[in-house]
């Protein structure tokens, strides 16, 4: 079943330069998709469109069969509950003046989700591998990896069906990165995951399908294993060629 359908979507901040050019993409329920591309390829813009923060210039996006319309308040309330996001920079994504509890509870409060919020926040903290009782503390008392766990807790607390991760592990050190990827892999069993990254290695480990974006166009898409084993587009080949060199350097140094 298709959860999200991106249908011939184009977007440009100025008329003559296209950030996204005729992008089509399906996210099936329960799928994990890696969206790969260099900085400036339009990954983050596509994410903003998928979150309903910006409207496409042309084309359409549907969520669960309904058009994603930022102006439709009633639809957006149910949509916000079902689609959540984790950002790259764990230092900018948590309000420094709020307690962890109130940060994680914000979607529950704003989307008026019924139930015992304190318990839901505790459950979310536990689900991301933190203690239930850290809720009274402030973001600056946590490390980058812990902050990213808190950001993930905020994203999963309303029980979304789609989790968008925008370079969510790129700012973390190697060992922390692996732990957060493990956490996301566990979560992807119960929700769809769109994992935006320029790190093809992490995508290979985490995602069943891969979409390669270059200069606002989808240049290659398919099963991660087959795309990586037999890249057809020159850009994908170049992306892949840069990976072994890096791992060789890491081994020799």
């Amino acid at each position, binding site marked *: 079943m298709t959860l999200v359908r991106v249908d011939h979507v184009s977007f440009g901040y100025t008329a003559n330069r296209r950030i996204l050019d005729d992008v089509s993409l399906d996210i099936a329920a329960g799928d994990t998709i890696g969206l790969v591309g260099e900085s400036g390829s339009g990954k983050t813009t596509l994410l903003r469109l998928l979150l309903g923060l910006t409207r496409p210039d042309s084309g359409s996006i549907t969520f669960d069969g309904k058009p994603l319309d930022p102006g439709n308040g009633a639809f*957006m309330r149910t949509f916000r509950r079902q689609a959540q996001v984790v950002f790259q920079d764990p230092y900018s994504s948590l309000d420094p003046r709020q307690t962890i509890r109130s940060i994680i509870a914000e979607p529950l409060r704003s989307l008026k989700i019924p139930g015992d919020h304190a318990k839901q926040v505790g459950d979310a903290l536990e689900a991301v591998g933190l203690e239930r009782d850290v809720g009274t503390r402030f973001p600056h008392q946590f490390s980058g990896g812990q902050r990213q766990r808190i950001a993930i807790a905020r994203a999963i607390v309303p029980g979304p069906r789609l989790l968008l991760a925008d370079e969510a592990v790129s700012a973390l050190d190697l060992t922390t990165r692996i732990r957060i990827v493990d956490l996301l892999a566990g979560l992807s069993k119960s929700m769809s995951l769109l994992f935006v990254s320029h790190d093809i290695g992490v995508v290979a480990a985490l995602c069943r399908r891969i979409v390669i974006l270059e200069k606002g166009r989808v240049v290659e898409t398919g099963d991660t294993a087959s795309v990586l084993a037999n890249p057809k587009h020159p850009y994908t080949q170049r992306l892949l060629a840069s990976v072994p060199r890096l791992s060789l350097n890491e081994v020799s140094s």
Partner: protein
Amino acid sequence: MSSATMTAPREQKRHSLILWAGLVLVGLHIAIALLTFVWLPYDPTAMAGGRLEGPSLLHWLGTDRLGRDLLTQMMIGSRIALIVGIGAVAIGAAIGVTLGLLAAFASKWLDDALAATLDILIAFPTLLIAMLVVAASDTANLWSAIIALGIALSAIVARLTRILAKRVLVMDYITAARTSGSSWPKIVAIHILPNIWPTLSVNFALQFGLAVIAEASLSYLGLGAPPPNASWGRVLQEAQGTVYTAPLGAIAPGIALVSLAIGVNLLADGLRDTIDPTRRAR
């Protein structure tokens, strides 16, 4: 972690010292101002002794050139200074924060227009703008002075608010708040104002000092509160002619002004550091 916990107590001690110094200074002025409503040593408008007497047990700060008790005038001055400072900052903050937030959210051309207007307003000295407003309102009284100073200060507050709000608006936690379903008014109240407040409040304290001094200047020029509202600026003006024979008339308002301005600034610094969670011990 360990080094932070080791330095934290000393840091906190310094913060609370600043807070206490501010509380004592401002508290003293407030206590005196409140006292004036129920008790004054002498009638502020009546001759209470000889002219230009030096300090004595009867007149702690002596008398002015009309024989009025200087301490009485100074006490009333405290009340006026506090009313002017609080009133002007409240007006300046209300107008300034609203305009600044509006500019931060506005489309590019409106933001540019507002920013340019604010820059032009700020280029004029606060006092000059205040004088223009007082002149335009054609009756010089305490309230016209307060409104004038409030309007003059609002440009500075607006520009600062605009810059601070823009800096917060690009943060990921604002986007996260939007994807969490929070409305813009809610985002302003929960995320933007608390994050710009520490810098704003310190600026308000600075503005308070400026307002009190500017009101003294307005009174000195005869544009402030009319008698019997003996503001410090008026006391200073009236003591001007006799500054060599009775210097206390000029020194006392000066000390009062400086102590209040410093007190308010210490209080704001102390409060900011005590409230700020990122400055608390880990």
